[in-house]
């Protein structure tokens, strides 16, 4: 039989080969503008923060980061962000699922509401949460000035990330795959675990990483509900703010650098996961 030989299948694209190609004039202009803009807005300011953090030596950097209040703020921030990211991973996927696969009245409204935490000034988010879960809570749930309150605020502002990354993937997911699995004898649960979930994982993880990085940098929404009690409910961003108010810019820069590194690691992990995902897509 003379069907296709293996040599006729396209080799996977080699990104390296493309990158070495000479850039044309138009591309050079575009690339130049992009790099210049990115440098002015992001790279140079970030680099300066890192430089500033080591102004007084690495020993001072370490001391600034490990002062009891800074350390408490950092661990709370990173810990709470990790928990919040995991909650988002599960519930964000669930919400995306419901929005894509289920039909119910008011679905379009719910779909729009998901973006509200993005649109709202975060301080307003804090105010809203304080009204519902503060000392005068109509529900009788008082989370004000507690770590749970910090978590709640972070959950509120990071809600859209996983939903909005998983949703399009779920919409695009080939339904034939699920029917093929069913006709091969897979139960609905087996189909979900072996067919649907593996295809969603890259998007789920990507949304989770975004939610995590957003959470560690959160300031506005936590300010009101947490009460900013040092050692207890003060998050890293608020701690940085208070360091600056106390004229300790080097200390503030040191804590900022730690946040920066944590965020960078999370985004790098995300990038690796996406490469892993697209290689198999």
């Amino acid at each position, binding site marked *: *039989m*003379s*069907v*296709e030989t*293996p040599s*006729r*299948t*396209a080799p*996977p694209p080699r990104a390296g080969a493309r990158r070495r190609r000479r850039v044309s004039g138009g591309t050079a202009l575009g690339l130049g503008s992009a790099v210049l803009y990115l440098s002015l807005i992001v790279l140079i300011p970030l680099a300066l923060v890192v430089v500033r953090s080591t102004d007084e030596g690495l020993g001072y950097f370490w001391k600034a980061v490990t002062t009891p209040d800074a350390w408490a703020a950092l661990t709370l921030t990173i810990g709470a962000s990790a928990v919040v990211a995991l909650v988002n991973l599960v519930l964000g996927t669930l919400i995306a699922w419901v929005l894509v696969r289920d039909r119910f009245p008011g679905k379009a409204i719910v779909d729009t509401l998901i973006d509200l935490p993005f649109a709202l000034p975060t301080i307003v988010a804090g105010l809203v949460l304080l009204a519902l879960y503060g000392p005068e809570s109509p529900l009788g749930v008082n989370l004000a000035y507690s770590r749970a309150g910090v978590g709640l605020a972070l959950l509120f502002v990071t809600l859209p990330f996983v939903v909005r990354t998983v949703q399009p993937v779920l919409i695009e997911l*080939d339904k*034939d*795959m699920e*029917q*093929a*699995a*069913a*006709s*091969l*004898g*897979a*139960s609905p649960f*087996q189909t979900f675990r*072996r*067919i649907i979930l*593996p*295809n969603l994982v890259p998007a789920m993880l990507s949304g989770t990483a975004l939610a995590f990085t957003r959470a560690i940098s959160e300031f506005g929404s936590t300010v009101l509900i947490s009460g900013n009690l040092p050692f207890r409910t003060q998050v890293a961003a608020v701690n940085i703010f208070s360091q600056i108010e106390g004229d300790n810019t080097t200390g503030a820069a040191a804590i900022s650098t730690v946040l920066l590194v944590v965020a960078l690691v999370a985004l790098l992990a995300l990038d690796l996961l996406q490469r892993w995902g697209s290689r*198999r*897509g």
Partner: protein
Amino acid sequence: MAIEVRDVNKSFGTTPVLRDVSVDVASGSLTALLGPSGGGKSTLLRVIAGLEHPDTGTVRISGVDATRLSPQRRNVGFVFQHYAAFKHMTVFRNVAFGLEIRKRPKDEIRRRVMELLELVHLERMADRYPSQLSGGQRQRMALARALAVEPEVLLLDEPFGALDAQVRKELRTWLRRLHDEVHVTTVFVTHDQEEAIEVADTVVVLADGAVEQVGSPSDVYDNPANPFVMRFLGPVTEIGGSLVRPHDIEISTEPRPGGDEASVTRVVRLGFEVRVELLVDGREAWAQVTRGTAEQLALAPGATVHVRPTPGARSLALTGA
């Protein structure tokens, strides 16, 4: 009978897609569901697979009433037009899927999958992902995947519809040969009458959600039940109020009994065959003749000739048309 479909009705909203459809598929046969798009053939296939539920009627598979069974309990293999490859799995894992679900021992799975990959000529592709395969290769993988679970019946929904003409032809021949090797009862959907005639041993013609005719390929071609089937199965032309195949028209320069006078309007040479366009009684018609005949009769635009169906030609009288 491997499949017995009885009085199946199915509507999408208010649009009926299947109307009182009854079809029998013999064990070990290779049956084509042939019809124009929107004729209900894919829906019928999906009803057999359990991917759609009929509004009324029953489906029996190997003598068991399967009407209420979910797809995963019917033990049918289904091949989709767009492959439905599990794109996050290698070719090997795709084919192994049904066996893994059935919790077969690892070495048995390995042996069976490699056997099947050999059967579909993909043994060297076992570790690739579907995105690294061509369309034809993906469809062969999907076929191996469906065969892995040793289904009672194999259902293929326009299996070659998404492939280019060359690969399509190859896979057609190959499917026929595969069926001769494996003998699994197979039903495939197609809108291509040539594909149905070439591959199947039984053709079910469906139009507007109803069965128009069932028969062997030569049966439906030579003895069409109605003008629709005749038109759908091959080229037709109209002479003297009857539908005739253009290759069943005799052209002569002298008048003959039962013949009509016609004038040649155009002569088109298509390799060895010649298409002669005619005007008979003011109506357009055409005949297909060999090059030899055309030269012998010196057919040219403007010539006056006499035409009639060849003796023994199958023709259908058109009533009221």
